[in-house]
């Protein structure tokens, strides 16, 4: 069973013993041993239907497979890494924030609601489900915020990483405070979460 450990906070070590993991294309910085890398084609990962969905929705999840015997060192742009263990549940995550996952987990695309028409972001996020470990990226140490019926949460979409639990996501528009003109192309909307669960954010804007 592939094992994830961290070497510091920005490097993920995947220990392979004759098995494989899926990881973000281009995220390998070093490796030892006999490891082969293969980019996922249409049939890889979440299955054909999922790959088709991605093609249609424009949601991109660019993954490769690392297999063999050895250690693979994964990192991405010096961002922090969090190892998340899923116990037969679903984690919804920004696809650009998914670094690696065990084979026992399944990925899919979920419709996330209508965002602003001119938004550069897709209308979908990646879901990871099953039992096993995955590693997600956070620009700065990740912050976990609880959502409950007593306290819904509003989040800057550029800081949003992932959520789990029974949550309903909606959009808050018409906010004038979001960005300084010309500095970032951020859309003037934010994400609102109601229900029960946890939202993960990074202390930075994408």
């Amino acid at each position: 069973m592939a094992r994830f450990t961290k070497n510091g906070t920005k490097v993920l070590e995947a220990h392979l013993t004759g098995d494989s993991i899926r990881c973000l294309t281009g995220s390998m910085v070093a490796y030892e041993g006999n490891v082969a890398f293969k980019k996922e084609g249409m049939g890889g990962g979440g299955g054909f239907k999922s790959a088709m969905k991605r093609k249609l929705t424009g949601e991109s999840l660019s993954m490769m497979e690392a297999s063999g015997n050895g250690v693979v060192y994964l990192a991405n742009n010096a961002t922090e890494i969090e190892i998340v263990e899923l116990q037969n549940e679903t984690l919804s995550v920004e696809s650009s924030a998914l670094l690696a996952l065990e084979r026992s987990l399944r990925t899919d695309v979920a419709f996330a609601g209508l965002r602003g028409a001119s938004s550069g972001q897709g209308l979908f996020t990646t879901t990871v489900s099953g039992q096993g470990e995955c590693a997600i990226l956070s620009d700065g140490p990740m912050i976990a915020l609880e959502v409950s019926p007593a306290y819904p949460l509003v989040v800057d979409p550029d800081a949003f990483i992932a959520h789990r639990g029974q949550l309903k996501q909606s959009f808050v528009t018409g906010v004038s405070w979001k960005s300084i003109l010309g500095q970032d192309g951020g859309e003037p909307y934010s994400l609102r979460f109601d229900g029960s669960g946890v939202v993960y954010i990074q202390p930075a804007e994408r």
Partner: protein
Amino acid sequence: MTPTILNPNTLPYNDNVNPYAFCVDLSQPWFMRKGAMIAYYGTANFEALGVTNLASMVAARFSSPLYANDWVVVSGQGKVVIGDRGYDINSYDIDAGNLTIKASNLLGFETGLELKQSIVPGFLTLIGTGKFLASSNGPVMFAEPPVRVDPEALLGWADCPSPSHHYDAGWMQGFLGAMGGMVLGLQSGEERQFDFTGEGTVLLQSSEEPRPDPAIARALESQLYGVDHAGLTRIQSVVQQRLMSQQP
């Protein structure tokens, strides 16, 4: 699983959540830089400075027309989490004092403080008593005068007089003499330093690649009215040199 799950009751009260994020309690209004908010609980009203009910308070506290567009006033009930580009965020308390800080690194401040524009372009001065939040690329370092500082490492200063420019003669001699005046790599800016003297504290950071501050260009533009034809031609050639040297 790390990290600890927080909620409005467990979030820190006007304190850091981690070195790169800060939680502000809205029990009183705060001035906040646009884009600084990354999450909030409760009912937070973010209002542009011209449009708020708190207009008279704003007018008394925020005297910087150059930057007014970049700020909002936040009021209501709840907790606001602030982050900035993954930079370190620290809160500072001013006690009947003054502090001048680089505008692009100031994220928020309590309404007990008054904000003015500094004579040094790109810097703002806070006066009075209250808390403010500033971000930095890496942890802030403090030094006491006398100290010489690279302009791009300067984050701000407290209590001591504004810095003066210092040109390192030995530095210049080595290059200009040999090159017959050709300015080689002077964009590093090391030849020009800020010189601090007096009693106070200087705030410094590693970053030598400052975040673009559109207000600096606006400030420079407004000063062009006093420049004559010869001066304008000279400025034009300097700008062209800078544009060329900035090409990747």
